[in-house]
């Protein structure tokens, strides 16, 4: 990846595992699970987020994308690996030390109905982070709050209203104002538009875009909506069962997806154009996302992959730079043979990293 000076956040082999128990002596005699059951929600993710960019994180429900976002902010404790913020490992800090960093790292939540305290006025909600971190500098908090409301497109007069008096889109604006109150550098936006109506989604995406330009913010934009991700992101990371399976420039990933899961995911998005819809070939994946409890061995996607071969069950692929700045995790593709469909036609087996031939060759 590019020079480290540009990276605001750098994840090194980040893990969030939940132990569900089982497998112990006691479980065996009491009839519990014979094997230890672990949910590997985030399973060894290494990822850089560059200063000023929007990194889109996309995947289906249960793939671990929200957990990853929360683990960066330590709202969920990582069980392994590092979260480097300007070179400092956040995962190793105590809760007290971490608190200081929360000024710089904020979050916007999916559900604008559940993430605002219904008993606080909007003014109180937005002022809370300012007071907590003593950021008023002796100035007028009320005025600061009103400025923030104006920034996110709400009337200054609304400070005494309660969240229930606002619509979903307006509440999401309140959530954004609260995140901006501490003047952060980095914002994790976890499905910020999923709960909103179509015409309101565009408003929120445009607002976030405007704020990013004005305040030089860095976003991790988490969504299952592939159309939205493509629109807002500079780079895109695709996640499947706890792992990043493809990473690259947003346009490139959408135009030339490399990993079979990304190819299927992008082909599944309905396009609002009947002419295109009539002509396109859709790859329909079989079955559901497997359970993240003890996921399939080897490549986690092998159970649904139309291109899977025997080795895929055995070898766990790592994220490899297939084309410049475009990474994918699949043993059937390599920089020399980047296109899985062609490899399938030529009947090429495993060509990527981790296979015996490659190890010998290089």
């Amino acid at each position, binding site marked *: 990846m590019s020079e480290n000076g540009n990276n605001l956040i750098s994840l090194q082999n980040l893990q969030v595992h939940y132990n569900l128990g089982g497998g112990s002596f006691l479980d065996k005699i009491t009839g519990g699970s014979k094997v230890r059951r672990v949910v590997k929600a985030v399973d060894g993710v290494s990822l850089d987020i560059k200063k000023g960019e929007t990194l889109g994180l996309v995947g*289906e*429900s249960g793939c671990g994308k929200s957990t990853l976002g929360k683990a960066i902010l330590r709202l969920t404790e990582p069980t392994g690996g590092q979260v480097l913020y300007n070179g400092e490992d956040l995962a190793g800090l105590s809760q007290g030390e971490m608190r200081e960093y929360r000024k710089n790292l904020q979050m916007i939540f999916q559900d604008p109905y559940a993430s605002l305290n219904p008993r606080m006025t909007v003014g109180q909600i937005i002022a809370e982070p300012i007071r907590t971190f003593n950021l008023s500098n002796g100035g007028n908090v009320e005025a600061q709050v009103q400025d923030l409301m104006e920034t996110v497109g709400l009337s200054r007069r609304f400070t005494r209203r309660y969240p229930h008096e606002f*619509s979903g*889109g*307006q509440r999401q604006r309140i959530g954004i104002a609260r995140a901006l109150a501490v003047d952060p550098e980095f914002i994790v936006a976890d499905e910020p538009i999923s709960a909103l*109506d*179509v*015409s*309101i*989604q*565009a*408003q929120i*995406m*445009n607002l976030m*875009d405007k704020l990013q330009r004005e305040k030089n913010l860095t976003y991790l934009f988490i969504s*299952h909506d*592939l*159309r*939205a991700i*493509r*629109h807002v992101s500079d780079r895109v990371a695709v996640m499947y069962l706890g792992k990043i399976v493809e990473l690259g420039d947003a*346009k490139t990933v*959408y*135009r*030339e997806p490399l990993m079979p899961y990304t190819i*299927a*995911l*992008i*082909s*599944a*998005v*309905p*396009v*609002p*154009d*009947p*002419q*295109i*819809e*009539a*002509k*396109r070939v*859709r790859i*329909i*994946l079989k*079955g*559901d*996302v497997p359970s993240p409890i003890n996921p399939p061995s080897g490549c986690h996607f092998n159970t649904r992959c139309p291109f899977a071969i025997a080795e895929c069950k055995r070898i766990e692929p790592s994220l490899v730079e297939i084309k410049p700045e475009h990474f994918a995790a699949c043993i059937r593709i390599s920089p020399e043979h980047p296109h899985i469909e062609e490899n399938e036609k030529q009947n090429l087996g495993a060509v990527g990293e981790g296979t015996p031939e490659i190890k010998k060759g290089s």
Partner: protein
Amino acid sequence: MSEINGHLLTVNDLKTYFQTEDGMVKAVDGITFTLSKGETLGIVGESGSGKSVTNLSIMRLIPEPPGKIVGGDIIFDGVDVRKLSIDDVRKIRGKRIAMIFQDPMTSLNPFLKISTQLMEVTELHLGHTKAQAREHAIKMLDTVGIPDAKSRIDGYPHEFSGGMRQRVMIAMALSCDPELLIADEPTTALDVTIQAQILELIKALKARMGTSVILITHDLGVVAGMTDKIIVMYAGKVFEQAPTAELFSTSANPYTKGLLKSVPDPAHEEGTELYQIPGLPPDVAHLPPGCPFAPRCYRAEDICHREFPPFVQIDENHFSLCHFAKEVYAESIEEKSAAAYSGDVQIQLNPLG
């Protein structure tokens, strides 16, 4: 089948109102359409636009009070559904008109086995014996692609994933071979890869059984590939009604155009900023005088704030509720030819590239 003018379903000026503390809410205020055998109609709208109430009205599922169908006709296969007794409606509901709901998590009874819930339908409507019903249920689960249907049929809903539950719902809806299937946001709660599976399934079943379908959704992408014609609703009113291809290429309504432009369209290279419809969807209990969309409309003039717009006929099957429908239509045609000239509408190999 004794269809009126070859139509399976004719809805004529349907009005469904709700009496609330806040005043009368005109949830659906005059919707007219016809549906032929094997045809698919898409109803598109944001929350509160009245799209679901339309379909609950067709099924006579509006809770009364507070709701009431206050006007219009619903003619299904020559029979006025509004005039039927509740017993007669029940004979149609689930048998000849079936429905799939948005949330497969809550529309199955969590205490009953899948088999019980599936068998009930055909025992009631087709007079199946237990053995016949069971055999039929297994066949239906097979049809909708539930692997190992024979053993899974005795499972409970919580043992199925979201996509699988929606398949069970579809199996249940189709067990009596209905003539009309109403799918209310059938894929909204599902992931894209599962959504693709379910839409593909509905398409295949429709082709095989010749079922007519009403597909309700907020997602313009879903209706683009699935429907023959589309109704766009806003604040309980039909804002535009047109064959699918025409609606997408040459819309005659500012709201439809705004909706189309505000969806990030991955098939075309993006501009910097996404078009946004300003403001908020209206409170249906307190609609402004004039056009309900006027406060948000990019081309509203004085008359729009004063007078309710006419429902203008553009051509045989294309209608738009707008004072300036003809002008908007002309704009769309102009934009389309300009875009074609600049090469903007090339169809790319990978539509998302």
